[in-house]
């Protein structure tokens, strides 16, 4: 399959858009008509053909433009990418994992040629052809983690594992849902999750940490998480809240279908072999309400989920003020018919909207 890469922006004029192909494979995150936190982990070993689950690191039509946006964020704020000194080996682990995975999964787009420590990496969509010596940082233009994550969609937390905990000791974070690497760097799992409401009381994080600590080489895991974003912004960081926070007040009943985006994170977890660290890629997918409503099942379900979501969660996810306007819009797509279980669109079996 050859991907047609979009030329689009995630800022200023917001020319980002999803093709029909991208809408069809959008990771709608609700498997039933309600939502509550859970440790909803499953093995990350492929998925239906063409789905975002199929490859280890999904590449889609937004790839080239997303990498251009990342480069702009880093030019403005280099602290979005940090790696504490003991994490360099984990950075090489990540570089190896991504290069091997992408060259095997997308041989028409990426090539990796290895002769002992002498490696050559070809990234055709970005026009890169670099030769370097594996484990020798002096032969790359950036550190290994920064080098490869400037070429890979999604944010990357590289977590050191020690003392029965995980530590946010390295990362590339430019497409985040309102959290800061520069603030969290060096924190452990409980410290960086401290702001999340309700989940601590439910014991979610104790169980999640236990699960993550035992993720083993060759057996990666995944889950979906979600929030809401006004305008197709990748960089919704605390550092830039003064720029994007105000945009939440620009939503009107007329423009909400185009402006309001469901933001879904495909979170995956891989054990890194040489360092025994854990990498936690957080891949962001955006889809505007208008496009979501083209799938009848998603229209019905999104209305029910947003309507019934506890106030704490709507506040934490940053859309409590706009929720009434969202519900006015969404209720027109909910005719009360039952929905099928699971996240898939089921376009062939779900009935069209009754009007």
């Amino acid at each position: 399959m050859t991907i047609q890469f979009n030329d689009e922006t995630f800022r200023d004029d917001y020319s980002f858009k999803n093709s029909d192909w991208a809408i069809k494979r959008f990771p709608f995150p609700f498997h039933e008509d309600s939502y509550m936190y859970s440790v909803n982990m499953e093995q990350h070993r492929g998925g239906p053909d063409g789905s975002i689950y199929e490859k280890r690191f999904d590449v889609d039509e937004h790839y080239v433009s997303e990498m251009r946006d990342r480069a702009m964020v880093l030019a403005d704020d280099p602290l979005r990418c940090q790696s504490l000194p003991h994490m360099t080996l984990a950075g090489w682990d990540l570089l190896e994992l991504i290069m091997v995975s992408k060259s095997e999964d997308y041989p028409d787009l990426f090539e990796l040629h290895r002769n002992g420590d002498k490696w050559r990496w070809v990234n055709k969509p970005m026009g890169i052809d670099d030769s370097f010596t594996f484990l020798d940082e002096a032969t790359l233009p950036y550190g290994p983690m920064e080098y490869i994550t400037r070429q890979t969609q999604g944010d990357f937390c590289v977590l050191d594992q020690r003392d029965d905990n995980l530590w946010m000791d390295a990362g590339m974070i430019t497409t985040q849902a309102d959290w800061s690497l520069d603030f969290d760097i060096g924190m452990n799992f409980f410290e960086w999750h401290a702001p999340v409401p309700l989940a601590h009381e439910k014991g979610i994080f104790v169980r999640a940490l236990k699960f993550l600590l035992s993720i083993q080489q060759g057996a990666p895991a995944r889950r979906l998480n979600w929030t809401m974003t006004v305008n197709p912004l990748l960089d919704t960081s605390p550092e830039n809240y003064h720029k994007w926070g105000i945009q939440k007040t620009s939503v009107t009943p007329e423009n909400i279908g185009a402006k309001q985006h469901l933001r879904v994170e495909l979170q995956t977890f891989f054990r890194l072999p040489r360092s025994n660290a854990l990498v936690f890629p957080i891949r962001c997918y955006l889809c505007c309400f208008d496009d979501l409503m083209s799938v009848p099942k998603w229209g019905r379900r999104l209305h029910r989920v947003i309507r019934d979501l506890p106030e704490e969660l709507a506040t934490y996810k940053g859309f409590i003020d706009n929720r009434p306007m969202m519900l006015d819009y969404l209720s027109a797509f909910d005719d009360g018919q039952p929905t099928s279980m699971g996240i898939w669109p089921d376009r062939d079996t779900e009935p069209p909207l009754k009007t």
Partner: protein
Amino acid sequence: MSGAEKIAVTVTDIVPLNDLVTRFEFKRTDGGLLPTFSGGAHTVVEMRDTSNGGDITRMNPYSLMSDPMDQSAYTISVRRDDEGRGGSLFMHNNVKVGDQMVVSNPVNLFSLDLLAKKHLFLAGGIGITPFLAQIKQLERFNGNWELHYACRNAALGSYVDELTDHYPNATHVYYDDNDQRIDLVNLLDGQPLGTHIYVCGPKGMIDWVRKTAAGEGWPRESIHYEEFLAPQSGKPFEVKLAVSNIVIQVGEQESLLEAIERAGVDAPYLCRGGACGQCETQVIDYTGNFIHRDHWLDDAEHASGDKIMPCVSRFEGKVLVLDR
């Protein structure tokens, strides 16, 4: 499927090192490369024993001692345990070059702390093996390490010669038969700030090092240890598995975990040596006494009767019902 991912391998070399220890080398049967790993990792070796008309599969963890960067082969060293349930004896007596076996992907429960300014290794006997891989990893990156290795005598000192040849300044060997002892208090006193201690050896040595270091004021997170337990034989007992709704018998020579697996119930595990915590199982009801042997549960949990680690622990009594 429980446990780490499996790899089909062929035994490519067997080298007896001394009266007790033999080294085994494995390569992938399909000719491909093995996964890299981090120093301190182990692999679980499956030993299918069909001798004497039986069919028993034992799974024992062994530390990987080869260079973590070397993807062509894995090596382990196995100490013969004449008193054990037969896993090491099977390796010594039955395994031949060319045999096909199954090993697990590497799992590391004894990882280097890469924040350490210096790594102080304390090995007892066959406990030397994880350090051999860690030393190779650290040498690749110019890490700062020092090894203190206690063994019975020169004849049983596995890898003493190659360690002292390659790293004469970093290797310190102590022979019990010559009354040589690690002067631990002085050794710890002389370490620079940021040193981490790693100990692997018999239980008595691990307890001694942990207690001494704690007494000298070392932080808990700077002391790392690994001891794999082998399951021990014991009296047969009966267990009800409530979720599966079956009653199974645990034989004298098998572990509770092995008996659960033999009954076709998929139970989680990783290390099978009482260290990793994966096989922790809730006890629903019991009348009798537990024989807890793991390192995972604390004393209060052992006393509570609520949990058991079926890889190494047993039970004596009338009724045992597990949530499995």
